[in-house]
């Protein structure tokens, strides 16, 4: 099963089995946003607490999903916690680029193709998240990997609008 080891790296399975920042935050002050993968039924709930200076003070993840969507959410939470919203958005863009969004097709869903065209700071390091690179070879799984990120972005948008 050569292909499978590409997809299911050890670190991914580790985050799946021991998810970081799992749980809920009180709302308010935190903001709660739900995301769905309409194809497979995965649900993500992102609780994010930002302060007046635009920093992600805390983040918690709820919901159910496959190893890819859950581990991606777990790694995301670790990557953005304590960062500024601006940096978090940059990491999101960098991650989506890693997922080849814009270059490869995902099929059927408007949102992916509309990924934002932010200039990405070359200093952004994805670290552990790079382990998800193998997902690119499994096109339908890209939606699993990006679910949490799209939900986080939506949470930021909702906070901005409020």
């Amino acid at each position, binding site marked *: *099963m050569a292909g*499978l080891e590409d997809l299911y790296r050890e670190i991914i399975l580790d985050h799946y*089995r021991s998810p970081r920042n799992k749980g809920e935050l009180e709302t308010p002050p935190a903001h709660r946003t739900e995301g769905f993968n309409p194809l*497979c*039924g995965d649900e993500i709930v992102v609780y994010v607490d930002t302060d007046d200076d635009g920093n992600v003070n805390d983040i918690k993840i709820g919901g*159910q999903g*496959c*190893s*890819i969507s859950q581990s991606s959410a777990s790694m995301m939470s670790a990557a953005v916690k304590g960062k500024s919203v601006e940096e978090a958005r940059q990491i999101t863009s960098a991650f989506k680029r890693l997922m080849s969004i814009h270059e490869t097709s995902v099929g059927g869903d408007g949102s992916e193709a509309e990924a934002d065209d932010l200039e990405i700071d070359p200093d952004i390091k994805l670290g552990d998240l790079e382990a998800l690179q193998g997902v690119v070879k*499994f096109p339908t799984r890209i939606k699993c990997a990006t679910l949490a990120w799209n939900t986080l972005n939506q949470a930021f948008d909702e906070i901005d609008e409020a």
Partner: protein
Amino acid sequence: MSNDTIDVAAIRRDFPILAQTQDDKRLVFLDSAASSQHPQQVLDAMNDVYLNSYANVHRGVYQLAERATSAYENARKSVARFIGAPSANEVIFTKNATEAINLVAQAWGRANLGPGDAVVLTLMEHHANIVPWQMMAAEIGFEIRWIEVTDDGQLDLSNLDQLLDGAKVLAFTAMSNVLGTVNPVERLTAAAKAAGAITVVDACQSVPHFPTNVVEMGADFVAFSGHKMLGPSGIGVLWGRMEMLDAMPPFLGGGGMIVNVTRDGFSADAVPGKFEAGTPPIVEAVGLGAAVEYLENIGMEAVRKHEVELTAYTMRTLTERLGDDLILLGPSEPAARGGVFSLAFADVHAHDVSQVLDEHAVCIRPGHHCAKPLMKRFDMNATARASVYIYNDTDDIDALADALVAARDFFAL
């Protein structure tokens, strides 16, 4: 082999796609509940139209057009015969079952439902038999009532009379695409009739697998799709009692569904023309006609018998090989269900199961199967669903079991 058993090896030879290998492994296709594969006979029938007799239907006097029209209308007759329809004119071709149900919910619904009315659905419906009613409920303001589902995946009919009291519509699936549950269609239509409600049967999962007689079903409307019964994509069927179809307004407007059009308005054609606006899925109907003939040659009694046997084998094998690690939703009695198996491991998500199975060339489908209210009822967000058809045999089930064992082991802590 006796007359009522089917020769799977011979059938498989008719399905070119099943001969392929994936990484040198025999392809094991267990996703027919989503969409089935196609015998060469169906492809030949469609190619024959495109190569020899293609033209738009119902409008030309030249020979190509005559041949295309009669091929299209003969398909209508074949489908009518297959489902025991009293008249071929009661068979309306749509693009899929979803359009067929929307046609009823919207065209019949707008003309007959008002605020304060009630429509009864079951909690095991496919979204195709939920969302159209929810859309109309939002527009018109009627109530939707739900028949609950028991823990072993049966409809809970204990309060049926109460639910039907004052209801105008009962819409339900003949067989669950998630649980495999075969519902008591005649009991349900009789109860609805007694309560003065019309019935809409989602027969997507039953028409491909069971002998069907719409008159015996006692329904007012029956919807199903061609692509789950060896037919091509792009074609579905709405059967309706002529009296109902006659009295209903049209759904889509355009060419082919009118008797006259002036600046001031139009008058609709007779059924079925009234409901077939625009150029229909001509060649797709012909393909469905060929699929129906293929199934008739095998015999639907034999198809059902094969599937009950394979269902029993599947349940036995999965229990033997995976025991308590694997949850199988739905009724435990093979004869009470169709060949659809929604599986779940406690610790491995359906999406991951499917991925491992794909490495074994075993094709199954993970997800909510367009039945989110039902998934919620069982507190799941996804299952891995395997489903069988005439071209599946015990080898396929053994391969499924092997791959499930591998999936469990791969993700074992």
